């Protein structure tokens, strides 16, 4: 029953996407408006297919229908409800269902949002591109990653349940959907970019139309990444939240290029320049989501996240190659229309800062991509094994990250066109003192080491700049000074600053120790006293939990645990964290005690400011939402920046009095 429903859904979606693409193509070729209007019906047909497949899978999971291969392989009757729901994205085939569902949702949303303009060739080609991408993923589901294969389970069969690591924390239910909303969301601006290239309407129209789509995709991706970091912190028990794991990198790469795009697009909107670059960034972002899926879902790279090997690797790689080829060819074909007449007057200007931003993010993305695929390339070329891991990424990203912070401090105060030293000195004065104050404060509180203190200084500097802009804007416009792209963007910047500080502090000042403890024993470490109270054992439906009860400074007890799931030989730890605004104390139980009275091996990790990573993520999300609302519009007819001198051949005067806050 579920199989029939699911397969129907997949084929409905595939049919809708393929026929939609073909019909739309003929409509576009013949310029037939009545045909183009049909695209909305096709979009909803696809959404229906995706919904049907997802519902069939969820029903199968919730009713323990082990005749479905995916359920047979990945679920168990004893899996708690929340994780049964989340099992859909805990393995390859199901995660593609989530992908097509989100993609179909976006397609239907586009069709609804642009329902009055479906006959516009630009929208038509965008819908066509969306249909083609939909068709690809439904085809993946129908042929290479079919979750609805039938099996006949022996009587009384119970499945193994999802990977124990993936049923250990409720964040597992939220992190992947968020990530997919971001990942897949970039398909929409990509589709419009392709449409702009095909129709030759390469002005700024399509950019403005997809601005919010890109922003929301980026926001979801950000939240997804942060939730993933939180999950790994709460579950993996080594005190880390970011391991430069290939899958993390795969989500980080489109985030980097997407961030670069969100910035450089402003140059194009304002000055009509960087068209090729922006198109390339957008297409690269989409291509990188496909490449990331290939790297992580095909089993070519080893990683915690990589699901088992399957046949979808070559298919995804082919699709990636196709995306790259098509976009490169289109950009080459439209090259003449993409050339912009403008020029950037000075590197010390808003445009110049956006260019620097793009160089930094492009280099960052290159480093991450290189580090991720390098072992693969080396192994393919000369059969030798080589690893690139955390130490490499940390060393490379430190200077890049510090430079980005510096740029975040300087760029928001720069005017368009050109800035003078006098202007910089005036606007950067207080932000710079905020930075020095932050560094001095950190040193007084005991922070040592040049690199972390420099990071605090630059973070304070950047926060000062962002704060300056927000203060000026709210003073002028009241609460509306927090809304709009420039102001919401500054709130996002503040979130980034908070994360940067938390990251630097927790990396630099982590303390850890490991010691055996007897019942009743007290140990002091890193200014905290730990008292081991005893062990308790709990039998749950799907696992046996052994908890060590430990008091931290008399509070608690905190209960780091080890879980043995009914299936799988591994024991999975559940760390226990005491979270405070200044520092986190994480307790991990290292090995099962032989008897309730025997000593336990306890690992203690003390890291400052961890909670601010999540708070910073929340700030970034809030800032993204605020940035999506229209701010106070500048008069569309007023000149964009400095007035051009009528007569003399000198450079135009600097728009010193006209703060960038005003013109946004």
């Amino acid at each position: 029953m579920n199989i029939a429903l699911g397969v129907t859904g997949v084929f409905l979606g595939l049919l809708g996407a393929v026929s939609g693409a073909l019909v739309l193509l003929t409509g576009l070729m013949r310029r037939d408006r009545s045909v183009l209007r049909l695209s909305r019906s096709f979009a909803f047909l696809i959404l229906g297919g995706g919904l049907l497949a997802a519902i069939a899978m969820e029903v199968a999971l919730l009713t323990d229908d082990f005749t479905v291969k995916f359920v047979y392989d990945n679920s168990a009757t004893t899996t708690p409800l929340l994780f049964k729901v989340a099992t859909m994205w805990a393995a390859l085939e199901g995660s593609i269902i989530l992908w097509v569902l989100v993609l179909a949702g976006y397609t239907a949303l586009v069709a609804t949002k642009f329902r009055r303009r479906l006959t516009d060739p630009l929208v038509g080609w965008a819908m066509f591109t969306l249909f083609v991408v939909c068709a690809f993923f439904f085809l993946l589901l129908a042929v290479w990653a079919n979750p609805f294969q039938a099996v006949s389970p022996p009587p009384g069969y119970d499945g193994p349940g999802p990977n124990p690591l993936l049923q250990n924390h409720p964040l597992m239910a939220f992190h992947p959907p968020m990530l997919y909303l971001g990942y897949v969301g970039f398909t929409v601006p990509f589709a419009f970019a392709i449409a702009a290239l095909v129709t030759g309407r390469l002005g700024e129209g399509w950019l403005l139309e997809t601005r919010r789509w890109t922003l929301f995709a980026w926001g979801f991706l950000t939240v997804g990444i942060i939730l993933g970091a939180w999950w790994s912190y709460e579950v993996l028990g080594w005190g880390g939240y970011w391991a430069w794991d290939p899958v993390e990198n795969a989500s980080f790469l489109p985030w980097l290029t997407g961030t670069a795009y969100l910035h450089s697009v402003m140059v194009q909107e304002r000055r009509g320049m960087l068209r090729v670059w922006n198109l390339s960034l957008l297409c690269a972002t989409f291509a990188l989501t496909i490449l990331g899926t290939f790297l992580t879902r095909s089993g070519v790279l080893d990683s915690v996240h990589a699901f088992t090997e399957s046949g979808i690797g070559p298919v995804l790689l082919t699709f990636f190659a196709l995306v790259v080829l098509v976009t490169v060819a289109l950009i080459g074909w439209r090259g003449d229309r993409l050339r912009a007449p403008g020029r950037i007057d000075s590197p010390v200007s808003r445009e110049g800062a956006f260019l620097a931003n793009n160089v930094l993010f492009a280099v960052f993305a290159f480093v991450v991509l290189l580090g991720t695929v390098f072992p693969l390339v080396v192994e393919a070329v000369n059969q030798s094994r080589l690893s690139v891991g955390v130490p490499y990424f940390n060393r490379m990203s430190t200077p890049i990250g510090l430079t980005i912070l510096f740029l975040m401090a300087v760029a928001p105060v720069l005017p368009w066109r050109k800035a003078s030293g006098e202007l910089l000195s005036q606007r950067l004065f207080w932000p710079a003192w905020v930075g020095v104050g932050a560094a001095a404060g950190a040193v007084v509180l005991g922070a040592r080491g040049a690199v972390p203190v420099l990071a605090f200084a630059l973070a304070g500097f950047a926060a000062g700049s962002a704060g300056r802009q927000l203060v000026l804007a709210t003073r002028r416009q009241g609460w509306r000074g927090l809304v709009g792209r420039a102001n919401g963007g500054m709130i996002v910047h503040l979130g980034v600053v908070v994360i940067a500080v938390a990251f630097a502090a927790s990396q630099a000042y982590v303390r850890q120790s490991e010691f055996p403890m007897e019942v009743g024993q007290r140990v002091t470490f890193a200014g905290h006293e730990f008292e081991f109270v005893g062990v308790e054992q709990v039998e749950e439906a799907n696992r046996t939990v052994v908890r060590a009860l430990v008091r931290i400074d008399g509070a608690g007890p905190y209960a780091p645990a080890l879980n043995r799931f009914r299936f799988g030989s591994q024991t999975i730890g559940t760390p226990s964290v005491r979270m405070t605004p200044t520092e986190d104390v994480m307790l991990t139980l290292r090995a099962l005690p032989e008897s309730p009275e025997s000593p336990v091996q306890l690992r203690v990790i003390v890291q400052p400011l961890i909670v601010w990573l999540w708070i910073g993520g929340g700030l970034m999300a809030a800032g993204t939402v605020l940035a999506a609302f229209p701010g106070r519009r500048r008069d569309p007819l007023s000149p964009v920046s400095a007035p051009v001198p009528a007569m003399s051949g000198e450079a135009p005067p600097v728009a010193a009095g006209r703060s960038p806050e005003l013109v946004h």
Partner: protein
Amino acid sequence: MTGKNETAMPPPARPGRRVRAIGWFGLVLVFGVVLAVAATGTRPAATDAERVDAVAKTLRCPTCQGESVAVSEALISQEIRADIRRRLTAGESPDQIRAYYVSTYGEGILLTPSATGTGAAVWVLPVVVAVLCLAGLVVAFRRWRTRGALRATPADRALVEQALRADRPTDAEEVR
């Protein structure tokens, strides 16, 4: 238009300028002192677990997938951590320990590729890309400078004026 812009731009106050110069000088001074204190200060002595962790972080777990020895819970990683602890207490340096593991498992066990041989590419290429990007920017700016600004001809201005007049409701229209 031009006039409106100029009135919105008061000339910067001269006395403030000197005060600010002193302020910047003070800022550099204070920051120098802060950094010096930060760089010379001592950190608390590392615990055994931290010294083991520092070495374990640089080694790849031989049997598991993409994890370091520090993070992995695999049996082999637990044994390697115990071995690192033994060797550290026996007085071996982290480099000696790494060298031992390279001789046993090969270069692939290091999570930081060495700066010689094939692994060097992973260090050199990002620098090359960064330099190329910067060079590209320099070339672009130079071209923009020599090409000169596009100057609006009187004909262009007339066009703009005409467009503005057409778009903007005239006073008369507003009254209506």
